[in-house]
């Protein structure tokens, strides 16, 4: 994670925020690309004797990533961790800035369910164009981007804890989830995040042409119905799922922080 910096560099709130902001672009791009294809429901129904094509693809793709040395960093968490092969080549080390229990914190089951059951119907058109392989590859890209952003909550939690351990230690000792959640929640910041990610969807999802009047569109005044993904879907995604799940990760991390 770039927020971890080079060897010896300390974790900082601004580096973590920068990383989260950059992840917004990745998430918006991934959803825009997925929206190129219609729902393609057959990709998600259980095939005879096994799971869906989506599940098959993610399992197999994660095995390739694992062989390539992925899943070492705290924000890279597999959806199917059992029986992942070891890295084929030696991997570059990275600075360990988190408590060792960070590797146990994982909300991927919730992300998977949210993505397929709630999010996909909101931004993909009905229909079937047969491109199931590409569809599930695009789903994987969305899942990875969402999982990475949400599990960055581990860094957020560490930075906040280090900043004021005296505030966090009592609720951690008392295992008081609600108190921790309150400490971690800043409505003003969350509102800004929602607005910004909605603006990104409006700008990145617009139809860019060479016409002069599209200068306006750079400021995000494009009509929402022309956007490849409805910007309101992005603010809903962040409001209902991304930010709450990130805070779940933060709370889960903090509860083990003093072990």
């Amino acid at each position, binding site marked *: 994670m*770039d927020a971890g910096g080079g060897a010896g560099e300390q974790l900082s709130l601004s580096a973590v925020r920068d990383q989260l902001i*950059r992840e917004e*672009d*990745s998430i918006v*791009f991934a959803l*825009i*690309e997925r929206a*190129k294809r219609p729902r393609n429901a*057959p*990709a998600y*129904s259980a*095939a005879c004797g096994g799971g869906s*094509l989506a599940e*098959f*693809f993610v399992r*197999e*793709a994660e095995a*390739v*990533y694992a*062989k*390539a*040395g*992925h899943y070492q960093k705290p924000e890279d968490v597999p959806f199917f961790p059992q029986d992942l092969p070891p890295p*084929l*080549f030696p*991997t*570059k*080390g*990275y600075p360990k800035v988190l408590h060792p229990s960070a590797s146990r914190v994982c909300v991927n089951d919730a992300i998977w369910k949210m993505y397929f059951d709630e999010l996909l119907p909101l931004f993909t058109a009905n229909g*079937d164009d*047969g*491109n*199931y*392989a*590409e569809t*599930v*590859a695009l789903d994987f*890209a969305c899942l990875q981007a969402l999982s990475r952003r949400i599990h960055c909550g581990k860094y957020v939690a560490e930075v906040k804890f280090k900043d004021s351990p005296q505030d966090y230690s009592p609720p951690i000792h008392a295992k008081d989830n609600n108190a921790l959640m309150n400490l971690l929640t800043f409505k003003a910041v969350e509102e*800004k995040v929602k*607005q*910004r990610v909605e*603006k*990104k969807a409006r*700008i*990145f999802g*617009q139809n*860019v*042409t*060479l016409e002069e009047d599209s*200068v306006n*569109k*750079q*400021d*995000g005044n494009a009509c929402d119905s022309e956007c*490849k993904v409805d910007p309101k879907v992005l603010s809903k995604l962040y409001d209902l799922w991304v930010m709450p799940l990130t805070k779940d990760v933060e709370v889960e991390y903090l509860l083990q922080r003093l072990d």
Partner: protein
Amino acid sequence: MAAHSVYSYLLLCNAITLLLVSPCCVGLGLDTVRDFLTREEDTIVFSLIERAKHPLNLPAYEEHAWFGPDGRRHNDSFAELFVRESEQIQAKAGRYQSQEEIPFFHSRVPFTLAPPYNFTTDLYPGAASVNVNDVIWGIYFNELLPLLAKNGDDGNYAVTAASDLACLQALSRRINYGRYVAEVKFRGDQQRYTALIGSKNKDALMKLLTSEAQEDVVKRRVEKKAMVLGQDITLDGPTETGDTNSGQSSFKVAPSVVYKLYDQWVIPLTKNVEVDYLLHRLD
């Protein structure tokens, strides 16, 4: 309307419908081709932006020795291994059943797990497999990547290779779509094309396929997309990149690089595919 004229009217409608909707031509036309290519521009720009998130990460492209499950020694770069294995999975998932997709490495897959689907076959069978993936591979790693990514090594080799794959697939799909462009143009002017194909006149074919005005529009539009899609978006009013005089460094990918990509490689290679396809069109 009198019964007789209603009947004639319906007959006329049917005749027109039959002319417009022949089985092999449904869906493929100059408009659909242009729409496809235009949408692919966004895909290409997004994939370049995502690759530029990471530095060059040269170790991902160095060859390593490794041992396969059969005990045999292999010599591959990270990136090549990643692409091969990823394509194998995608083949099992049925990706290459669609004529639009052509893999960089051929893998023999006895069957796919994909649910069955009746893909249309718009291309002439004898020319459908024409492609320039080898050239695209070389250009991407040797010419484009150094322009795209900053020097450095962040150790994220898997994500780097995955980003490379996304760029390669987007470029491959766009450039090899020249087959569809050629098919549409051929159908639109069969007599002229047949004569040139018969005499294997590559230069004349290339000339017929080239519209500099159209190419200029494409290049300028994709450059603009790099500016719009690669800008840093904040909540504080118009972004600094709204000013056309601002430096190229405020964009995630330099728009001039994207312009160059289309000018020197994407458009010329697409036309090479078009010519190659046409030369096989009457086989």
